[in-house]
């Protein structure tokens, strides 16, 4: 039989993972690899991922690509797979510890957060000193992407994040508050409304992803504030980039799930053929698939790409 591989994503409902799956499928077809995809039911559903890893072992797969829901919790299952001779590559989200996987192809979420933070600070200029910032986070459970983007934004913006592994321990007066969105439009809108009620002078909004940003925009629009507020986000999905184009979102950090998946499949194929494992990016402990700030209003000192470029690379 030929080489077979597994792709395990956090969910199969988020377009990010859907695109990741498409990228992997396309590459697998090209290389003649049999690919089977698995997913958790919701973000944070680690047991389904454990079950998926076991299935892959039983199924005789050569390698596993995984975006872990629980970066610490998945480690023992990953170890089992590696002990069984499978190549395990973490996609998008590094495991904790990062060397629990054979390799990590990921976005640097902290960097993604930093980029939008820097861009927001630079765009506001002097006004950044007394900006009013709202944070629209993911879920009450504070998963690691959530924490890294949120805290990265603070670092980039010039807010002291205190404990960078924890949301909510900051004391900077510019923070109006944190609310959760479940990463969707409805949550984004409600959270924005709530925080606006707390302080109507919010002028910067950090959103965990673009659907939440779209919801926040609706809330701002309903009170006629959509013009004066900077919304920044992370993801780089096509609807999100289009929203940047139309000024809904100021800037977004684009990540490249298709690339992660395609690289992952290539690595597994190579491992199956030659036994060689992929190497991390120079100077980092993972293979950085890159993140670029997408905006048509570039700010000085913050590297960015244009919306046109962003649209070419967008996913979903």
């Amino acid at each position, binding site marked *: 039989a030929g080489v077979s591989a597994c792709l395990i994503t956090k969910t199969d409902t*988020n377009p990010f993972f859907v695109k990741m799956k498409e990228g992997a499928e396309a590459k697998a077809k090209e290389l003649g690899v049999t690919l089977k995809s698995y997913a958790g039911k919701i973000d944070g559903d680690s047991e389904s991922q454990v079950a998926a890893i076991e299935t892959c072992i039983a199924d005789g797969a050569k390698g596993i690509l995984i975006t872990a829901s629980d970066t610490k919790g998945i480690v023992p299952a990953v170890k089992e797979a590696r002990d069984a001779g499978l190549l395990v590559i973490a996609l998008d989200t590094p495991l904790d510890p990062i060397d629990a996987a054979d390799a990590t192809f990921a976005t640097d979420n902290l960097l993604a957060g930093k980029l939008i933070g820097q861009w927001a600070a630079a765009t506001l200029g002097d006004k950044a000193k007394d900006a009013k910032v709202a944070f629209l986070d993911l879920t009450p459970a504070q998963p690691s992407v959530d924490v890294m983007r949120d805290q990265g934004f603070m670092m980039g913006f010039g807010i002291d994040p205190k404990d960078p592994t924890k949301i909510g321990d900051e004391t900077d007066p510019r923070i109006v*508050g944190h609310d959760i969105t479940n990463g*969707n439009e409805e949550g984004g809108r409600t959270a924005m*409304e709530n925080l606006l009620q707390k302080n109507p002078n919010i002028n910067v909004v950090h959103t965990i992803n673009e659907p939440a940003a779209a919801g926040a925009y609706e809330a701002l629009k309903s009170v006629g504030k959509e013009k004066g507020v900077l919304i920044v986000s992370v993801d780089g999905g096509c609807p999100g980039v289009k929203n940047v184009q139309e000024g809904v979102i100021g800037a977004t950090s684009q990540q490249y799930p298709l690339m992660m998946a395609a690289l992952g499949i290539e690595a597994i194929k190579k491992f199956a053929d030659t036994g060689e494992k992929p190497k991390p990016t120079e100077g980092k402990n993972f293979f950085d698939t890159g993140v670029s700030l997408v905006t048509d209003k570039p700010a000085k000192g913050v590297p960015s790409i244009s919306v046109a470029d962003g649209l070419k690379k967008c996913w979903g």
Partner: protein
Amino acid sequence: MSEPKAATKPHLEYENVLSGSSKQVAQFDSDKKTPVQKFQYFLHSSPAAVPLIVLILSLAVFASILGSKFFSPFALTLILQQVAITGVIGAAQTLVILTAGIDLSVGAIMVLSSVVMGQVAVHYGVPAPLAVLCGFVVGAVCGFINGFLIARVKLPPFIVTLGMWQIVLATNFLYSANETIRSQDLGDSAALLQIFGQSVKLGGAVFTYGVIALAVLVAVLWYVLNNTAWGRHLYAVGDDPDAAELSGVNVKRMLISVYTLAGLICALGGWVMIGRIGSVSPTAGQFANIESITAVVIGGMSLFGGRGSILGMLFGALIVGVFQLGLRMAGTDPQWTYMLIGVLIIAAVAIDQWIRKVAG
């Protein structure tokens, strides 16, 4: 034919004395009612009164803590906007729970309907009114399947709607390919879908069409439940389906119509949701089940059917909305809010139980 016989026979001679028997019935209303007892009786006889009082109290508490920032026309109408979807879905849930059922598939039906509306309008280029109609048809069909399985195949509602939940949600993801339709794309080709997001402003107060839709829906259902035969039959079915059947209610047809109507209302909820979030998202509405059941329960409705008022559900939804906004404005951590709502659910039902027990 024999003549009617004389009423008295040797065997029953002892019954002759009955003509002189007292007409008094063995019912002794206790005269010395304390004000507390009177109050309890009032609460008992008007099922929506308890949640209304709790609502007013919680408004008062948050208003006194947070001041005018909270107790402003704008903030108060904001709460209405935030509970509009829960309220609409709660109305569907109310009908089902009045029949002693439960519908776990409301959220899934809502999302699938909204996705169908969006996809049909944007991707197939069908005129918006027709697209909305398609959404309603999908909602009604899902509801009808629920009703059919419950009424005809006689399966427990919990299980049917548990299964349908998974089936409808999976269908939704498969059909939509997890793709969000952006607000702008909708605005171009099918602005009608977003109509519930528009609003009427009265001073600081902002009433979205979604809020108005909720108010109209609740008013219509209130009228239907209280002033039409269908409404009386609904209560009878929830109270005791066997008795209802034997005394002339077509229980199966009632159940099917209730679940179908619930599906239709869920489709309306989907439409309202498009208005609220602007876009069409297949991942929205994941908590509509729990939120609608919570609203119904806090609104004092019995999960055993046949008792409760749809106004109670509305108040229940508003109580949750007040708590969520109030706690958030007070700067409470979201996790504490969750916990408090858990406590609120239990407390609301405990109070209700206490009233029932004491007022009898």
